[in-house]
């Protein structure tokens, strides 16, 4: 008898499936693809911040040999892009931000295209600049978008309970104003697209970096005024996403219009400078927060007023309040909560979605207030959080339902592994000792959606699964791979169902002609949603296989199982037949059949109502992160030494992939807090390059101690939750709390650059820095 042992890939360290090709330099990103006959597209961007366009003269550019198309707003339909449809791909009447697209060229070579741009003459009439969002709603402020004369792009209001009542019940109240700055994604692969339009058939093929191919299909069809059925989106591997590819941006329809006009494929790729100037940022915010608590630390209320600088146009940045309000209303039990946000137009750059989607900003304020309340009440930071932390079974004021919740375990794990309590007290006592090197430790915690986010009517994902005659499985999934490792996790989950080794599975995820619908890669949803979808398809295949095997073995399907590429007897693992043999016997029989299944998974979450009530995600991810730092009080330099992180991940699927996500997120959060700063002054971006925009480099990373809390979510794939965004969220708040622990000074404005920290320390002592 041959027994096939049970084996599982869940929780193992599985290398990313596409890593070998990437490490050989074979992977072809959009930048690396060239189509026959392709032209190079380039965009003329304005150097004005706010100006009326009097005239654009393209005659000389058009006359340049090698130029095949020159377009301005006059040549294309007047349709706007983005959340408020206020962003025309090419601007015709006026420019509102420094990067505004005013003309585009397709030419034989990049050199000629750039030459042609120089020949375009634009006459402007400058308009008064609105650079400070606090001025946007003042009487007499320049109007940025004629359709919104009050300069208000969007407002969000949410409330539960009665904050006045909460305030009455409070023994202590704290109030502060926080400022969160501009940072940008800095994907190592710059933005790019190739548009291939065939005028006779009307077929449009896009080679695109999008994270949301199916939503883009619809949006492209609206913007271009064409049949969505004619649009095919092919997604080459992406050099980083982080939320930046969630909206359509002007360069994409511009490339299509150029391809249409020139009747040749057009490739349009940014320079790094363009990437800094013309891709979306993280949403800057000015937050006023008031929080209260009783003597024993019980939270009483939170009142939040947030001003978002929407810039000249509206992309996803304006909608971050969706996510922010969850942190205010539901990270802790808060009986009374009032939340108001206003996104106002200005002549500054505009923000898109960025990993964490408003939660870095919200957590920065809430988690500093937890420490401030604790300090006033003489409690320690861990105690006040444990007192108010959510638990399984809770339904929050906003209607979020916490089924699996490992929040308290995250807090206690991170605290004990970092020796938080002792260090916190020690460092606080050493504040007043002589010496310029001060050590500090700070804690912050977070909640984030972990089971998708139903911000569209469907938050689903489709899978098509097929098996060949040799037992090889191909999964066609709607879920895009953006470097996060989703393809490997999906393969693992299918292997688990079908008892197959990893190399028996391949994943196709890059062509809308082939793959079924998915809402897109955002909201940390892919493992959860696409994972459940893939499991559904695999279970149907398994059913088919075991039923077929039952017929030829005189056993019932439930007496059989799949293991190691065999059909085996469930009771003892005795080999019944190799899987390929069974598949062939199904295929080459009288009733010839192939094993092919489909599954569409829709999570149990709900689309929130107009008051933002409802359980928007099927589950929630939790985390606590503790940062240890050293502050040099003579220079303001903050060194991040160690991060102790505990994340409720539901269940570990791919341990290595998960660690990679958490480590990468921690370092991204470190950059947000300490080094990155897109300097925008009077609407101008002062540092559009890596020389002056500092990403964290290898020597600066902290020691990282990462723990996974496995709360085994009931609806999650094998119990897992999504965590892609979680690790970046707490960092700035934890570092702020650590700086306070080290120096006794509370920093409420990001970034914590040496200059800002030094100024704050001197000012707190009553000094003046000129």
């Amino acid at each position: 008898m041959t027994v096939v042992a049970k084996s599982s890939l869940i929780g193992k360290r599985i290398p990313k499936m596409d890593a070998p090709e990437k490490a050989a330099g074979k992977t072809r990103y959009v930048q690396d693809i060239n189509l026959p006959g392709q032209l190079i597209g380039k965009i003329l961007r304005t150097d004005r911040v706010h100006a009326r366009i009097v005239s654009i003269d393209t005659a000389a550019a058009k006359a340049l040999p090698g130029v095949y198309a020159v377009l301005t707003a006059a040549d294309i339909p007047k349709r706007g892009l983005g959340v408020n449809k206020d962003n025309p791909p090419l601007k015709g009447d006026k420019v509102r931000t420094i990067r505004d697209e005013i003309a585009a060229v397709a030419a034989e070579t990049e050199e000629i295209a750039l030459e042609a741009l120089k020949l375009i003459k634009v006459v402007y009439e400058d308009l008064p600049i609105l650079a400070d969002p606090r001025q946007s709603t003042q009487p007499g402020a320049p109007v940025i978008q004629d359709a919104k004369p009050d300069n208000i792009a969007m407002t969000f209001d949410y409330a539960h309970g009665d904050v006045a009542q909460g305030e009455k019940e409070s023994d202590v109240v704290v109030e502060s104003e926080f400022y969160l700055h501009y940072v940008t994604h800095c994907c190592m692969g710059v933005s790019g697209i190739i548009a291939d339009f065939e005028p006779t058939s009307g077929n449009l093929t896009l080679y695109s970096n999008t994270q949301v191919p199916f939503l883009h299909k619809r949006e492209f069809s609206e913007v271009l005024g064409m049949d969505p059925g004619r649009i095919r989106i092919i997604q080459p591997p992406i050099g980083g996403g982080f939320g930046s590819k969630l909206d359509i941006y002007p360069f994409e329809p511009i490339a299509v219009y150029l391809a249409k006009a020139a009747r040749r494929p057009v490739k349009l790729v940014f320079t790094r400078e363009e990437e800094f100037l013309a891709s979306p940022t993280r949403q800057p915010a000015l937050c006023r927060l008031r929080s209260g608590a009783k003597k024993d630390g019980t939270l009483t209320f939170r009142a939040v007023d947030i001003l978002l600088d929407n810039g000249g146009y509206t992309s996803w940045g304006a909608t971050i309040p969706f996510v922010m309000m969850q942190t205010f209303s539901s990270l802790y039990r808060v009986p009374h909560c009032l939340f108001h946000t206003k996104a106002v137009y200005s002549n500054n750059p505009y923000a898109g979605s960025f990993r964490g989607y408003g939660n870095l900003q919200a957590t920065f304020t809430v988690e500093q207030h937890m420490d401030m309340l604790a300090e006033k009440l003489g409690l320690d930071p861990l105690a006040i959080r444990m007192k108010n932390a959510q638990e399984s079974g809770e339904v929050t004021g906003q209607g979020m339902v916490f089924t699996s919740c490992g929040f308290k375990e995250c807090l206690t794990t991170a605290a004990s592994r970092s020796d938080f309590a002792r260090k916190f007290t020690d460092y606080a006592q050493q504040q007043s000792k002589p010496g310029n090197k001060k050590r500090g430790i700070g804690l912050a915690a977070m909640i984030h959606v972990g089971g998708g986010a139903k911000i569209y009517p469907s938050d689903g994902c489709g899978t098509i699964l097929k098996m060949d005659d040799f037992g090889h499985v191909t999964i066609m999934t709607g879920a895009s791979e953006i470097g996060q490792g989703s393809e490997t996790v999906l393969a693992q989950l299918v292997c688990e169902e079908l008892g197959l080794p990893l190399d028996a599975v391949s994943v196709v995820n890059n062509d809308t002609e082939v793959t079924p619908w998915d809402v897109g890669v955002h909201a940390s949803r892919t493992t959860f949603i696409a994972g459940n979808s893939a499991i559904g398809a695999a279970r149907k295949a398994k059913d088919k296989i075991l039923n077929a095997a039952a017929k030829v073995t005189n056993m019932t399907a439930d007496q059989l199982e799949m293991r190691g590429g065999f059909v085996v007897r469930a009771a003892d693992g005795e080999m019944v037949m190799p899987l390929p043999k069974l598949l062939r016997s199904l295929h080459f029989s009288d009733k010839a059949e192939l094993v092919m299944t489909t599954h569409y998974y829709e999570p149990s979450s709900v689309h929130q109502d107009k008051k933002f009530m409802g359980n928007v995600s099927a589950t929630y991810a939790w985390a606590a992160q503790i940062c240890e730092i050293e502050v040099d009080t003579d220079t303001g330099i903050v060194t991040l030494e160690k991060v102790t992180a505990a994340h409720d991940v539901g269940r570990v699927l791919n341990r290595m992939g998960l660690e990679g996500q958490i480590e990468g997120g921690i370092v991204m959060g470190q950059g947000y807090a300490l080094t990155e700063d897109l300097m925008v002054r009077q609407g101008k971006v002062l540092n559009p390059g890596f020389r002056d925009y500092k990403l964290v480099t290898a020597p600066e990373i902290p020691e990282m101690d990462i723990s996974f809390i496995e709360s085994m979510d009931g609806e999650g794939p094998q119990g897992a939750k999504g965590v892609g965004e979680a690790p970046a969220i707490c960092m700035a708040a934890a570092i702020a709390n650590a700086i306070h622990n080290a120096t006794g000074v509370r920093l409420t404005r990001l970034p914590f650059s040496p200059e800002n920290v030094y100024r704050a320390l001197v000012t707190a002592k009553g000094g003046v820095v000129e």
Partner: protein
Amino acid sequence: MSLTVEIRFTLNGSPTRAAVPPGLTALAMLRDIVGLTGTKYGCGEGECGACTILVDGLSVNSCLMFAVECDGRAITTVEGLAADPANDRLRDAFVEEGGVQCGFCTPGMIVQSKYLLSQHPHPSHEQIRRGLEGNLCRCTGYKKIIEAVAKAAEGTP
């Protein structure tokens, strides 16, 4: 069309000729004229390391080098490293230690690591961190890349 200069050099071990405009970067030559797209453009100003190649065994940002400067030199790109089984240990270490996510920085990281290991066959963690200072990665947080280089160095005679 701009004037071109004819240059001869060794590319990944093979003698190569190319006609290049004088202002062209080595990066653009590799990608657009020779057609080796493994070497990446990340910034074009020597700040990210995505374009790292070896020139006579030294690591160089190819975006800062003129193509004409390749004349008479031995150039190695990530494709050249991948073609030599002697480098499999390094490449496998990146794969097995999780040093690759989106992979855009990976070719530059691998070439830089090759150089680093040629200088320090048994590097300390600090030497690895310093050695990779000029290579940006937005995905991994560097830890697994550092571990990959350390692993590749293990067992090196």
